[in-house]
C-alpha cells in the first residue's frame, strides 16, 4: 500500500471520529503549543536584548575600558561590588598610551558622565539630566545623528567650546515653544549653547533614552563630571570582531603594565562588551529553555500514552477489519504501516494544531504584555517532527499487535 493512501485512510479514520481524535490529540497539542510559545518568548527576548537593548547601550564591535561595568543588568554580589569600589579610577594619563596601542582604523572616544541639574529660561523648574562630556568620535561610534543643528567638532572639543547636543526629551522639556538651536542651556550653572538635537534613541523597557545632553570633552562641564584628571572610560570601536579581540588584548596589556599588575593578579579594570553584559540574560534563557523543554515534554509523554491507548482500542475495535485485510492479501508490514501512519498522522495533526495555537498565544503575549515574542521557524519544524515521532513511537506497540494478529482469529472477531 502506498504511503499517501495510508495517510488518506488515516485521515478518513480521524474524520469519522472527530471528537475522540480531538481529545486524543490534546496532549500533543498542548505540548507543542507550549514549545512554540516558550521558544517564541525566549527568542523574542533574545532578539530584544541583543539588537535593541545592548545595541543601544554598547554598539557592535565596541568595548568600554572602565573601572566597573556601566551596565549591570543581572545585578552583582556584595563582594564583587566592594572589589569594584577599591579599584583605581581610569585617568587622563591612561588615554594616550591606550589610544597608541589600538590597531589603525579603530575609533575611540573618551567619556565622562554624571547626572547634573540643567535649567533654561523658558522653564521655571530645573531638572536632573544625564550629562556627558565626550570626545568627538563618540557620535560616530554611537552612529548618532541630529535631526536639527549639528554635532560638535574635534576642534570645538580641543578648544573646550561650551556647546551642547541634546536629546529630544531635553529639547521638548526645556524649550517647549521655541527652537532650541542657538539658545542657552545652563548645565550645573555653566552656560552652554545648544547646537544640535540628537535623533531619538528610543527606549528600553519603557525608559526613554532621550533624556541626555552631551558636550565636548574639554568643555567646562568636565569640572563637574569628574575631577582630578579622572575619566569614566574610553569607548573603543573596532572595524570588525577580530580587530576588536586584538584591541582588547592590546588595551589590557597596556593597562596591566601601567598598573604594574603581576601575572597572578586579576584585572582591576573592565573591558566591557555587550556579550559580557548579556551573560545574565543567557542564564535566564537557560532556565526558560529548560521550562520550554520540560513542559512540552510532559505534554508529549502524556500525549504519547493517550495515543497508544487509543490505538490499542482502535486495533481491538477493528480486529475484524484487520482479518478482512489480511484475507485479501495485506502483509504484516501493510497492517503495521497502516496503524503507524494512522497514529503518526493523528499526532502530527495534533502538533499542527498546537503550532497554530502556540503562534496565537505568542501573538497574544506580544500584544498584551511588554514581553517581545518571536516565533522561531526551527521550533515549528521541531514540533512537527516531534509530532510525527511521538505518533510513531506511540503507535509501534499497537501496530505490531495488529500486524501479528492471526488472520483467522481476527476474522472471527465481531
Amino acid at each position, binding site marked *: 500500500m502506498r504511503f499517501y493512501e495510508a495517510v488518506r485512510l488515516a485521515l478518513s479514520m480521524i474524520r469519522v471520529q472527530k471528537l475522540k481524535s480531538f481529545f486524543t490529540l490534546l496532549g500533543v497539542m498542548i505540548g507543542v503549543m507550549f514549545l512554540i510559545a516558550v521558544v517564541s518568548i525566549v527568542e523574542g527576548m533574545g532578539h530584544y536584548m541583543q539588537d535593541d537593548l545592548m545595541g543601544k547601550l554598547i554598539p557592535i564591535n565596541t568595548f568600554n575600558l572602565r573601572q566597573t561595568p556601566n551596565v549591570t543588568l543581572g545585578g552583582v554580589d556584595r563582594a564583587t561590588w566592594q572589589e569594584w569600589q577599591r579599584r583605581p579610577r581610569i585617568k587622563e594619563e591612561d588615554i594616550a598610551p591606550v589610544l597608541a596601542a589600538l590597531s589603525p582604523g579603530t575609533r575611540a572616544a573618551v567619556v565622562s558622565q554624571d547626572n547634573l541639574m540643567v535649567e533654561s529660561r523658558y522653564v521655571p523648574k530645573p531638572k536632573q539630566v544625564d550629562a556627558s562630556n565626550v570626545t568627538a568620535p563618540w557620535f560616530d561610534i554611537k552612529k548618532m545623528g541630529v535631526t536639527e543643528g549639528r554635532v560638535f567638532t574635534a576642534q570645538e572639543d580641543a578648544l573646550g567650546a561650551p556647546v551642547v547636543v541634546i536629546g529630544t526629551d531635553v529639547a521638548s522639556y526645556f524649550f517647549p515653544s521655541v527652537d532650541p538651536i542657538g539658545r542657552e542651556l545652563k548645565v550645573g550653572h555653566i552656560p552652554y549653547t545648544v547646537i544640535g538635537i540628537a535623533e531619538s534613541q528610543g527606549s528600553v523597557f519603557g525608559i526613554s533614552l532621550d533624556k541626555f545632553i552631551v558636550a565636548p570633552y574639554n568643555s567646562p562641564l568636565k569640572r563637574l563630571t569628574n575631577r582630578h584628571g579622572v575619566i569614566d572610560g574610553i569607548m573603543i570601536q573596532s572595524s570588525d570582531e577580530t580587530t576588536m579581540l586584538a584591541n582588547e588584548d592590546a588595551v589590557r596589556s597596556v593597562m596591566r603594565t601601567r598598573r604594574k599588575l603581576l601575572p597572578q593578579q586579576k584585572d582591576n579594570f573592565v573591558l566591557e562588551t555587550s556579550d559580557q553584559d548579556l551573560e545574565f540574560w543567557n542564564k535566564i534563557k537557560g532556565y526558560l529553555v529548560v521550562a520550554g523543554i520540560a513542559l512540552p515534554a510532559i505534554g508529549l509523554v502524556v500525549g504519547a500514552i493517550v495515543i497508544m491507548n487509543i490505538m490499542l482500542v482502535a486495533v481491538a475495535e477493528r480486529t475484524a477489519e484487520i482479518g478482512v485485510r489480511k484475507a*485479501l492479501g*495485506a502483509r504484516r508490514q501493510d497492517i503495521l504501516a497502516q496503524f503507524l501512519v494512522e497514529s503518526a498522522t493523528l499526532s502530527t495533526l495534533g502538533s499542527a494544531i498546537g503550532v497554530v495555537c502556540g503562534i496565537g498565544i505568542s501573538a497574544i503575549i506580544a500584544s498584551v504584555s511588554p514581553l517581545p515574542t518571536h516565533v522561531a521557524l526551527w521550533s515549528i519544524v521541531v514540533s512537527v517532527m516531534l509530532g510525527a515521532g511521538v505518533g510513531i513511537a506511540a503507535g509501534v506497540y499497537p501496530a505490531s499487535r495488529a500486524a501479528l494478529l492471526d488472520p483467522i482469529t481476527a476474522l472471527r472477531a465481531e
Partner: protein
Amino acid sequence: MNNEIEEAPLSTTAERRAVTQVAGVAPGQEWAIVARGLKREYDMGGEIVRALRGVDIAVRRNEYVAIMGPSGSGKSTLMNLIGCLDTPDAGEYWLNGTLVSDMSDDQLAHVRNKEIGFVFQTFNLLPRSTALQNVELPLVYAGVGSEERRARAKEALERVELGERMDHRPNELSGGQRQRVAIARALVNRPAILLADEPTGNLDSRTSEDIMRVFSGLSDHGQTVIMVTHEPDIAAHARRVIVLRDGVVETDERKETFHERLTAFGSSVVG
C-alpha cells in the same frame, strides 16, 4: 473463457486418487488444488481437537465443488487451509502447481491476494468504506494504481449487477447486495479459485438463489469455485459434492450421485 476449459469434464475418482496418492510430486497444471493428507489440530487448553485428520482433495480447474458435512466436521478448517489463511500441521497442499503448505506468512499473503477470492457467510465488508472502496481493497494490496483500481472495481461491481450502488456503504445495502459486493471483491483481482464458506448462510432462500445464479454464471465462464454449505438445495448448484465427517472425507462424488443417495437415505448423508 475459452471453450476448451468450459467443456472440460469433471475429474474422475481415479484421476483424483492418482494425483493425491503421490506425496511430494507436483501435480499437473490442470489441477487447481491438490491436498494430500492434510491434518490440522487445535489445542484447546490441553485437549487436542483433531479438526482434520488426513484429508485428500483434488480439484481441477473450472470445477464447481460443494463441501458439506455436519457441524464441526472440519469444513471451515479445510477452507481456511485451501484459502491460505492457515497452514496444516501435516500433509501437503499444492495450489496451481505450487507447494504452499510451507510458505511464510508474507508469501501466503501474496498468494491470498493473487490466487484466492474469499466470500464469507457474514460478508465481512469494511463498514466505513463504500462498496467501491471495498472492492478496490485487494487491488490496493496488489499495488495497482488508483485509476486502474477504480476502473477494475467498477467493472467487477457491474458484473454482479451493482453498478448503481457503488457509493453506498454496507449498511445501506441489503444482505444479498452485500454478498454481491463481497463476490465482486473476491473476483476483482482475477483469482484462480473462488472460495465461499456458507455464502448463503445469512440470506433468505430467494436471495440465496440469486447468489447461486451468480456463482453458476461464474462457473460457466471458467471460474473454479469451492463452496461450503449446509443446504442440499444450495449444494445442488455445484457439479460435485464432498462430504466431510469427523475431519476426513467421507464421500466425494458427482452431484447427481449425491442427490440419488440423498433421496434414498435422507439428510443423514450430510448430517
